């Protein structure tokens, strides 16, 4: 994307070109998205959820995948490209049905490797009964993309009548996390910076049908998959959108020690690290235990836990009670996650 887009007239002083940070899912990304959607009046993006709900009970989402390395512990770009879109539908209570797939590959890319990734993508579709209905492939001259970019668009049907969303949040609601935070991000970071973390693996997986199992819970408020920007970004968006506070407890979060070590070494905030099979779920307090039990019925949700609650206090802010008992704000990442000096 280098240099393709610029917004000189409303550009931030001195930053009128895109930086990597604009794609990192933090506040810079939000600024860019706002500038784009400003040009499309009445865009459904305005509700800020993971997928759009269309008239007639359909839901649709689109996403691009540019992971490096293409293959990692726990998955590859093919699996990721289907799971990512499936998850965007799942968290709004839509059953994924049809897939459109775009492939942009670099000249010289090994065909066998490409087909391997396509096999991973197909395997996820098979297991969920998703049909590939249309696609597109482009090969571009060497150097114009880094190996392989995929994009997927997934169409689904709403299973639950009343739409889930952050506007449903009420004080007292419980916040549940379905698995340890940041596993995918930590796995990729470990690769990128040459760290060996034993036992660390991406959580890349389809959240459907696990999330389908909790759709009948009547007090279900909203769900989000904690991808780019991590759990912190999801909770900050919820609290801002609902105009309520959220408090989580560090000692209730189902941490993964290997992911924590990677973050510790690189100076990354674990709550900012992406997951690719990890959802935050908000539910009426009285139904929290039942929801956790349902989630624990799936291997993907075996560490599901209540990690906090929604409050009237400090609207728009997310707080965490730390292991030592102190409290602090939880913030969103700003731009590219950069390893620190020492």
């Amino acid at each position, binding site marked *: 994307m*280098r*240099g393709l887009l610029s917004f000189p007239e409303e550009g*931030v*002083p*001195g*930053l009128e*070109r*895109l*930086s*990597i*940070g604009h794609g990192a899912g*933090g*506040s*810079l990304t939000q*600024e860019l998205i706002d500038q784009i959607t400003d040009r499309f009046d009445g865009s459904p993006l305005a509700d800020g959820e993971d997928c759009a709900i269309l008239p007639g009970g359909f839901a649709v989402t689109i996403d691009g995948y540019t992971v490096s390395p293409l293959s990692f512990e726990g998955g590859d770009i093919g699996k990721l490209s289907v799971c990512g879109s499936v998850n965007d539908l799942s968290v709004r209570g839509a059953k994924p049905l049809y897939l459109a797939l775009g492939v942009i590959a670099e000249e010289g890319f090994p065909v066998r490797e490409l087909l391997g990734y396509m096999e991973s993508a197909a395997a996820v579709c098979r297991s969920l009964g998703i049909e590939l209905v249309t696609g597109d492939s482009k090969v571009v001259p060497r150097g114009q993309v880094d190996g392989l970019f995929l994009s997927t668009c997934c169409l689904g049907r709403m299973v639950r009548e009343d739409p889930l969303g952050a506007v449903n949040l009420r004080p007292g609601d419980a916040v549940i996390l379905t698995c340890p935070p940041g596993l995918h991000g930590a796995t990729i970071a470990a690769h990128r*910076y*040459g760290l060996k973390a034993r036992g660390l693996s991406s959580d890349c997986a389809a959240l459907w049908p696990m999330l389908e199992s909790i759709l009948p819970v009547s007090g279900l408020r909203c769900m989000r998959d904690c991808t780019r920007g991590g759990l912190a970004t999801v909770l900050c968006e919820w609290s801002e959108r609902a105009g309520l*506070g959220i*408090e989580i407890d*560090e*000692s209730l979060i189902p*941490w993964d*020690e290997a992911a*924590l070590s990677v*973050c*510790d070494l*690189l*100076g990354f*905030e*674990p709550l900012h690290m992406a997951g690719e099979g990890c959802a935050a779920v908000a539910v009426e307090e009285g139904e929290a235990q039942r929801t956790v039990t349902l989630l624990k019925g799936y291997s993907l949700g075996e560490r599901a836990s209540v990690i906090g609650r929604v*409050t009237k*206090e*400090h609207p728009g*802010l997310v*707080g*965490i*009670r*730390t*292991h*030592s*008992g*102190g*409290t*602090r*704000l939880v*913030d969103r990442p*700003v*731009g*590219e996650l*950069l*390893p*620190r*000096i*020492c």
Partner: protein
Amino acid sequence: MQAHRPGDPRKRVELLSKALSELADPPIKVMEVCGTHTVSIFRQGLRTLLPAKISLVSGPGCPVCVTSQGEIDAALSLASREDTTIATYGDMLRVPGTGTTLAEERSRGADVRVITSADEALSLAMNDRTRSVVFLAVGFETTAPATASVVLDAWREGLDNFMVLDLHKSVPPALGALASDPDVNLDAFLLPGHVSVITGLATYRFLPERFGIACAVAGFEAEGIMMALVEVARQIRMKRPRVASLYSRAVRPQGNVAARNVMDRVFTLGDAPWRGLGVIPSSGFFLRKEFARFDAVERLGVAVKETPPPVGCRCGEVLKGLIDPPFCDLFGRSCTPAHPVGPCMVSTEGSCAAYYRFQKRGYLDWKD
């Protein structure tokens, strides 16, 4: 974020806080020197647990923050050279120089690579001998030994395309400058953990002996930091300031002699500019004459000029612990982590960034 240990860590921290409250009479002002401490203290919410009698101020221990404006501009001018690859630690990428940043230059096509070790910078040079690779060598005693070691490697290899923009600084002289500044007025230092692993303890003795300042090296977990605070409060109470280590599993009294030998072989100490603190005598690690061909300043003719900081930026006062970041007029208004003006708002270890991230809008109204 520490792993769970047996017993209730919240109880233990509470007890330490109580002890601190009893010892700190009259109130004391403590500077945590190291940026990793600053962030650790905020991330663990320790400020919300400290008795009001402890005033904790952040010091000049974030390597990016103390890098002077002129030094950053020198790095940027190197990045604009077509045949040059810049290898840098990630923190430096978004620090504003005069008018631009390395990240912005990268988006315009400059070859700027983020590395996590000096070795990686050397590998870049070995793998492509057609380009000059300049390593932005930033940091204190923690990263300087690794730089010294790769300079020795490059020298042994006879490598011609590897250079260093050497901005390394030494912590103890900066503490001396703060201790002798009548405006700063500190009772105690929480000494840095990682730096002390290399320096050992003796180098700090002048602080209690000449200035009567209590000192303790602290680890990075909540209890380690609280114990170090209790230690300095006790020293002050007993009127017996000294250099104590509460981080003995990592810091040996003599430090890391091998690392210091490598540094001595490659570097010599000279006067260096610190943002906010000015030029501090014998506080910069400069390449010795025999390694001059690895010095980007010598080889490529870049100059480190004296450049004034951005208008209104009070990073300098923040770095001396004279003001808390929210007292700067730019804080949270024109200077935020997304659009930083000064380096203290950019670096993950900068105290402005830490205040903004973890405490921007005051303490949470937390109900149990």
